[in-house]
């Protein structure tokens, strides 16, 4: 038996037993958060100064929203779609190093798709595959990891967007799935230098997009972040207790989506915030990371997304409005499941199925055999997993 359902059932019962209390407590916290948002709506200078004080004196790793110039409760109606624009979306997938397989390789597959607004022409898909083998499977700190591969994938996504944007008819709107901020090795980690190298390349690609004046964004569906909530927490904690800010989480459990779900009408966006985090410091001036929440749902059925954008997009109202309108339009194309159509198509273009992975493995094995090179064997563990299940006698 794979799972003891008797054990699970008992724990599910306990989960259900506690759920109403938890829900009630969360409701009270959400109400408190809403009140705080209203109270602090125009107190932008005080909040900014307090966050900066916390970062300088108590917690340099503080991660929260930083108000820019729009009140915290501001909401902006859906702007008109630009008359013309080129829309570009990219997504990527990867095959990681599998030590149980008979051959060692990694693969990064990035799919991008491009369409012209108000044009009946079908969108143009582009695929870029990169096979990694031999020495490419090693980094200065050892063998390539899933995190490094994900970093390379993110970099490739943005690179292909920059390449296509350079050839596209302006104005250009580009987006990828997930945050724009790169995640990678911290100081002291063996992969830190590798991350720094990728980060510099990534910043270079962002700078190219900035030079092209292409509106660029990272689209986060169903955001679970509490960046604005954390800002409110910082605002709430008395000055004398700021030294304890890391442990002070009076609104734990409340998310930013809870704050803006009812505040934003269909198609509306929240105020733009700057991102305060340790890694966000890598993105300076025109590349500084910002974000806003967007209600891409229908009237009566809100659905929030967080949209990360660099400063050059925030600084241009035309670019920001164009991005806002294009994203809502893309989401509405998908009807009852609002998600940017082109991002879904980019995902379809990029995704590598298990069957395709098997085919690539076979291609490599055949090539090596053809050249008389000895190939490895599937691990015993993997071979056992692949054995057929129980068969029945059919007479």
């Amino acid at each position, binding site marked *: 038996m794979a799972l003891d359902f008797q054990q699970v059932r008992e724990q599910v019962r306990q989960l259900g037993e506690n759920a109403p209390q938890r829900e009630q407590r969360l409701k009270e916290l959400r109400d408190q958060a809403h009140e705080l948002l209203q109270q602090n709506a125009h107190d932008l200078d005080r909040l900014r100064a307090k966050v900066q004080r916390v970062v300088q004196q108590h917690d340099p790793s503080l991660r929260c929203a930083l108000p820019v110039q729009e009140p915290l409760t501001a909401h902006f109606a859906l702007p008109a779609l630009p008359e013309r624009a080129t829309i570009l979306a990219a997504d990527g997938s990867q095959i990681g190093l599998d030590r149980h397989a008979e051959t060692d390789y990694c693969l990064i597959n990035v799919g991008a798709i491009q*369409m*012209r607004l108000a*044009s*009946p*022409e*079908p*969108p143009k*898909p582009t695929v870029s595959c990169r096979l990694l083998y031999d020495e490419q499977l090693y980094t200065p700190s050892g063998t390539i990891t899933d995190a490094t591969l994900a970093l390379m994938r993110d970099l490739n996504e943005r690179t292909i967007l920059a390449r296509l944007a350079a050839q596209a008819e302006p104005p250009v709107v580009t987006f990828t799935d997930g945050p724009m901020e790169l995640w990678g090795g911290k100081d002291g980690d063996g992969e830190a230098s590798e991350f720094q190298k990728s980060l510099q390349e990534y910043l270079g690609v962002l700078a190219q997009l900035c030079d092209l004046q292409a509106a660029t964004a990272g689209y986060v569906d169903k955001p679970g972040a509490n960046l604005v909530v954390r800002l409110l927490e910082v605002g709430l904690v008395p000055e004398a207790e700021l030294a304890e800010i890391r442990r002070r989480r009076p609104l734990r459990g409340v998310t930013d989506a809870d704050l803006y779900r009812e505040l934003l009408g269909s198609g509306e966006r929240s105020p733009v915030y700057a991102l305060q985090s340790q890694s966000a410091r890598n993105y300076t001036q025109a590349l500084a990371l910002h974000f806003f929440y967007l209600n891409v749902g229908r009237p009566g059925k809100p659905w929030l997304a967080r949209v990360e954008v660099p400063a050059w997009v925030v600084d241009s109202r035309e670019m920001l409005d164009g991005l806002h309108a294009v994203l809502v339009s893309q989401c*509405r*194309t*998908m*009807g*009852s*499941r609002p998600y940017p*159509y082109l991002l*879904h*198509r980019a995902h*379809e273009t990029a995704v590598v199925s298990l069957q395709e992975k098997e085919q690539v493995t076979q291609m490599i094995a055949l090539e090596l055999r053809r050249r008389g090179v000895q190939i490895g064997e599937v691990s015993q563990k993997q071979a056992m997993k692949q054995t057929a299940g129980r068969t029945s006698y059919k007479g």
Partner: protein
Amino acid sequence: MRTIEIGRLLRAGTSGFVVGCRVSQLNTPSFGSLVSVSLEDGCQIYGLIHDIRIDDDGLVRQLITAEGVDEAIIADNRVNRNVPLEMSVLAVGYRQNGKVSHLLPPRPPLCLDVIYLCDDEELCGFTGSGRYGYFRHILRAAELPVGELLAAHLLQAQAAHQRAGDYEWAISATKELIVLLRDDYPTLMTAISTLGDAIPEIWDMKGL
């Protein structure tokens, strides 16, 4: 001879095969059309399209829920995406060494073989050869809409024969059908009624 490629073979058996094609290739073939596929040994298999299926997938289902679908999105799904479009074909005969046979083909075509739509010359060549022996395969396929398939096929074949100056083919074919179905009154009446709807002038033709 003008040949129009309509797709490639997905799967096959001796009595029929299934062809896959892109939506953009669907302009020419229609229900009842005669198609052909060549085997490596030169044998050419003929079949009648008896079903055209357009399957959905998750994205298409999702797009249906939107208010109005942009032209570019429709084009994307028809041109770029792998929308499964299948045509089922009933094998009705073959040509080997230049001779047409209305028996089942000796072996089925292979996967990814190219399927062509038959032009007038080929259609007249196949249907005008012998004594309508291929009708047997259609009448035997009880699970198919036999009357509709016969009517669609006869309509297309009659037009091709008339363009070639032969105005008697449809009368002769209908007479043969009546003979073949003389012991199966319900099917005969369905076929005759459908034929009457499809080709009303057939009742005015001399000799029927």
